[in-house]
């Protein structure tokens, strides 16, 4: 059985079009004009049990809407979706016992009370057996290092501390699927890493399926094998993260340090100079036009090289280049990707 099955899912919202100013507001009351926003159009995808999927796209691409449909909060306008064999918007309560969700920007802990009170409440709401609850709680306390935080009122916690507790609250009932909507937003490196480690641990030990949206390329690189990119409510790319890199990593950067000062301008055909100093230079080039070995060879011949580093561009840049391409071009690409 697939953990998540979506076919031809669509969701459109109808909003009243408001023109600026008082006159516009009045017009919206008396003769409203409607704007149909298609947040999700024709998304189809399957997710196997135990998979970790990165579901990414620019703001307003339809990621959160899709998650909200899958968790049963929103009714779709068309199409089918099954999560663990259940239709989310019809069997919301039944499904709720088996899924967990984290919405990075939304609070679920009782603000005036310490997190442990909310945890205890959730153990009742999810009807957890007391021993299973204790075990799960202890695991999460260790994993997130929140032992000293859970007895402090939430309003006194920092954002990072609070987010760790928010995520722990969503994991107490050992969900089979977790939906994470930007779980690491606004967090420091250590907190981010703790969250990633815990998610990976849950996946490894319990076989938890993970459905992750994030704008943080680090989350995707360190957690996910498969990535789906959507924009304007449509799937642009669906493949392994490694394939994404292979396909789009056509650029490399090389940093070189020389033994002697270099005189004058540095020039090499097909290579762009990003930065230059007396003893060093940073270059960038397209690997399909200019192979790496050729660049290194030339460098070695011309100068006495002390150190050399070859770098991939950051994941962010790859994703950005996909977002920025016009839709027609991207369509061709995903077609050729499927053919591969």
């Amino acid at each position, binding site marked *: 059985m697939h953990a998540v099955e979506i076919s031809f899912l669509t969701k459109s919202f109808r909003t009243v079009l408001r023109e600026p100013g008082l006159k516009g507001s009045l017009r919206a009351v008396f003769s409203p004009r409607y704007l149909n926003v298609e947040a999700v159009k024709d998304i189809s995808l399957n997710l196997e049990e135990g998979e970790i999927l990165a579901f990414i796209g620019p703001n*307003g691409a339809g990621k959160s809407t899709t998650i909200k449909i899958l968790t049963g909060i*929103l009714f779709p306008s068309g199409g089918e979706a099954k999560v663990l064999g259940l239709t989310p918007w019809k069997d919301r309560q039944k499904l*709720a016992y088996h899924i967990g969700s984290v919405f990075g*920007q*939304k609070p679920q802990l009782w603000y005036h*009370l310490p997190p442990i009170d909310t945890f205890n*409440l959730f153990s009742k709401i999810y009807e957890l057996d007391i021993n299973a609850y204790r075990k799960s709680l202890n695991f999460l306390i260790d994993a997130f290092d929140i032992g000293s935080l859970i007895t402090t009122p939430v309003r006194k916690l920092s954002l990072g501390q609070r987010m760790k507790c928010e995520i722990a609250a969503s994991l107490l009932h050992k969900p089979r699927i977790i939906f994470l909507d930007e779980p690491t937003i606004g967090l420091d490196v250590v907190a981010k890493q703790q969250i990633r480690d815990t998610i990976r641990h849950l996946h490894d030990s319990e076989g938890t399926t993970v459905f992750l949206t994030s704008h943080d390329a680090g989350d995707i690189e360190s957690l996910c094998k498969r990535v789906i990119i959507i924009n304007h409510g449509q799937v642009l790319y669906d493949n392994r993260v490694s394939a994404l890199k292979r396909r789009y990593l056509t650029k490399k950067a090389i940093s070189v340090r020389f033994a002697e000062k270099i005189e004058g301008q540095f020039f090499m055909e097909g290579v762009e100079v990003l930065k230059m100093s007396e003893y060093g230079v940073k270059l960038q080039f397209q690997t399909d036009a200019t192979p790496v070995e050729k660049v290194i060879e030339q460098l070695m011949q011309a100068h006495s090289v002390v150190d050399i580093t070859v770098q991939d561009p950051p994941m962010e840049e790859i994703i950005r280049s996909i977002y920025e391409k016009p839709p027609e071009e991207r369509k061709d690409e995903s077609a050729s990707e499927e053919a591969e």
Partner: protein
Amino acid sequence: MKRIRTLLQKYCAVAVINLHSSTAYTGEVAMRSIMITVILYVLVHLWKAAYSASGATAISGLTVRDTLWYLVLTETIILSKSAFSTRISEEVRDGSLAYTIMRPYNYILYHMSYSLGDSLVKLLMNFAAGALVVLLLEGPPQHFTIVMIPFLLISVILALVLDFCFEGLIGLCAFILEDVSSLQLIYNKILFILGGMLIPLDFFPGWLAALSKALPFNLVLYGPARIFVRGEISAALTILFLQCLWITVMATILFLLYRKAVKYLSINGG
């Protein structure tokens, strides 16, 4: 049987955590009690002046002391009731609805437990503070007996449940309208007048009293307050019966409407 116990535990836990949360700030709880003492202090002088101006010792069967104890109860309920509609509206606006709506419980029952938990502490505090003012300035209630305590308690709880249903109907509009403060304002004004918060319904001209008593809003304030000041068991039973009847009607509408409203739901925050 075990299933029912688990469910009861679930909703009780919601009420308890909220009771706990609403007492998190002792200062705020105390300030709220000061509010009712001020209101009642003003009302005591206002009504005393009104009674002495009219020259009557009783108006429609209520003495000035009856009227003041009546107001203790209506003010207590109005200041302790939970603003469920505002909370739904907030949940829609800040998007936390995404969490509250997808947990394994009934959303309406969850909020009902939440509201009752929130109201219970306030009820006790407000009643104690308000009763103290009238007790010191006017003396103890004249017709209330210990026998009436269970009737009064049940009636106050039912009043809160009925109010919750009205608030819920307003709150569900937030799924579509997002902001429901205007509707809530109207509802509160209805409670002030037709509910009998400011003036006991018995003082109204005949047609208005009849209208107010035919509408369910009086069962939120006037009903329990009347049980308190009149102390007649038969009248109390009628009020309890009417409360149950209207709760059944309003709750049915609320649950049906909820199922419809959920389909219209759109949640802020992309």
